[in-house]
């Protein structure tokens, strides 16, 4: 049971990193990013490839994951920032699917649909089981704390004020002499780099990567998390990711109480449970658990 809880905690903390990035993109800046999983995928594969085929230390993989995911966001920013919000959403969705197709097709690098197995686990030296699991959760907590600290500093700064101004009315920002593109590109790169780091943690935690782990559903799980937690709130990203895990994993135990459900049906029931939760949230608490944009 402890191992199971540690596993849930690790995955939840990875989702918090993703949700923080999306909160920066959408909740604070208003960028409708439907391709968050693309940055996550780049980070995971960067870490996987460098630590297996590349023979590099794990730390190098983490740095590469952040840098490559951030770099991938740069051209998307340049190309799409002239687009209207809805087109930006489509472009990002297309980007993440392109990333998935590239890692599926480029077998020489990614091993195609077979994926990359044998990615070294973090803290293997501590021994398999609880010691290493706790160490991983500890490191993830530290990284999350650092990201949250960074985000609070950003939000309370003049930079944070500007990105929220862009979210509220971009034309007014332009009319008042500031270039929204400058801010949006930086925001995109920062959130993407964080998703890349989340990907590196994921790869080293699960131990293998295959393209199927990076379907758009992951992006929408992150969206569900921030909607349930409250868009535009850092605390909303944290609480939302925790809620998401509660619904995803909690629905696992439904099998013990609900009769006549097979393991196969269960997978659908779990997604249904999250969907139902989302519908209930938008009906009864549209601002999310922690409240939405309005800061006070």
């Amino acid at each position, binding site marked *: 049971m402890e191992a199971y809880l540690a596993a849930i905690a690790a995955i939840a903390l990875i989702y918090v990193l993703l949700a923080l990035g999306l909160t920066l993109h959408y909740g604070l800046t208003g960028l409708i990013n439907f391709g968050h999983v693309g940055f996550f995928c780049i980070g995971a594969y960067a870490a996987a490839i460098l630590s297996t085929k590349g023979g590099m230390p794990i730390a190098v993989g983490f740095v590469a994951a952040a840098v490559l995911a951030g770099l991938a966001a740069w051209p998307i920013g340049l190309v799409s920032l002239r687009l209207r919000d809805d087109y930006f959403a489509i472009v990002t969705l297309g980007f993440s699917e392109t990333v998935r197709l590239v890692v599926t097709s480029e077998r020489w690098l990614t091993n195609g649909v077979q994926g990359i197995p044998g990615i070294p686990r973090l803290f293997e030296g501590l021994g398999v089981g609880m010691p290493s699991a706790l160490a991983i959760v500890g490191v993830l907590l530290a990284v999350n704390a650092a990201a949250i600290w960074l985000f609070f500093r950003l939000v309370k700064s*003049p930079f944070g*004020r*500007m990105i929220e101004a862009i979210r509220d009315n971009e034309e*007014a920002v332009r009319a*008042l002499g*500031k270039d929204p593109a400058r801010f949006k590109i930086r925001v995109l790169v920062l959130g993407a780099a964080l998703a890349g780091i989340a990907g590196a943690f994921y790869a080293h935690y699960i131990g293998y990567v295959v393209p199927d782990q990076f379907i758009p559903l992951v992006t929408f799980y992150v969206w569900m998390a921030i909607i349930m937690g409250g868009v535009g709130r850092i605390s909303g990203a944290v609480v939302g990711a925790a809620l998401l895990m509660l619904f995803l994993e909690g629905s696992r135990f439904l099998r013990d109480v609900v009769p006549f459900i097979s393991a196969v049906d269960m997978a659908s029931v779990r997604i249904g449970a999250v969907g139902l939760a989302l519908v209930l949230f938008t009906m009864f608490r549209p601002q999310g658990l922690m409240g939405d944009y309005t*800061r006070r």
Partner: protein
Amino acid sequence: MTLTLSSLTRSFGGFRAVDSVSFSVDEGGLVGVIGPNGAGKSTLFSLISGFLAPDSGTVSLFGEDITRLAAHERARRGMVRTFQVPREYAHLTVRENLLAAVPGQSGETLRGLFLRPAAVRAEEQTARARVADAIGFLRLSPVAETPAGRLSGGQKKLLELGRALMTNPKLILLDEPFAGVNPVLVAALSDHIRTLNGRGIGFLIIEHDLPALTRLVSTLHVMDRGRIIASGAPEAVLSAPEVREAYLGGVS
């Protein structure tokens, strides 16, 4: 000349929304543009402020051709606009709305934020002092900490003017500042505009509310179907037959 428009033209399909418009605004001038609905006033404003590109003609500001400059670059050169329907930052407070308009803040760059925190703090203090002055001047103190989305229509217009002021403008373009504003605030807004004009800030104002505008401006241009049909002192312009024709539909 602060602002000079020459032969500014813009069509939508076959429709000439703005048709060869030329006029200028002197330094510190107080100029109005009136015209019936659909005369092309808002399109003209978008051409001047850089939200639309003209098909032909030029816009120059302090002798520099700015026809091809982006909207934010025009604003940085000292010409800033407001919007007919206020575009406040709804979730930021009035104070934050004004702070966000202060130019040249190094705290708005990531490098400044993390490498020069002391400079950022000092700049923020200066910005806050300026914003406090503007809040006092515009009498927005009671709502200073209110999210701007909750303000009344008139208060939002005041806030738009306040944000424009924070950019240290030489010329402010006001798009229907009196529309949807109660009479008390119209008077207050007019007073503010006069005071600011007295400090040397030029104004170009599009308006429907004729009495309020004619009392305010020294020069009036009348637009009809994309063209300027009359220009001059307000009283003279308003008594011109072609203006009465355009406005009153030929009723004499």
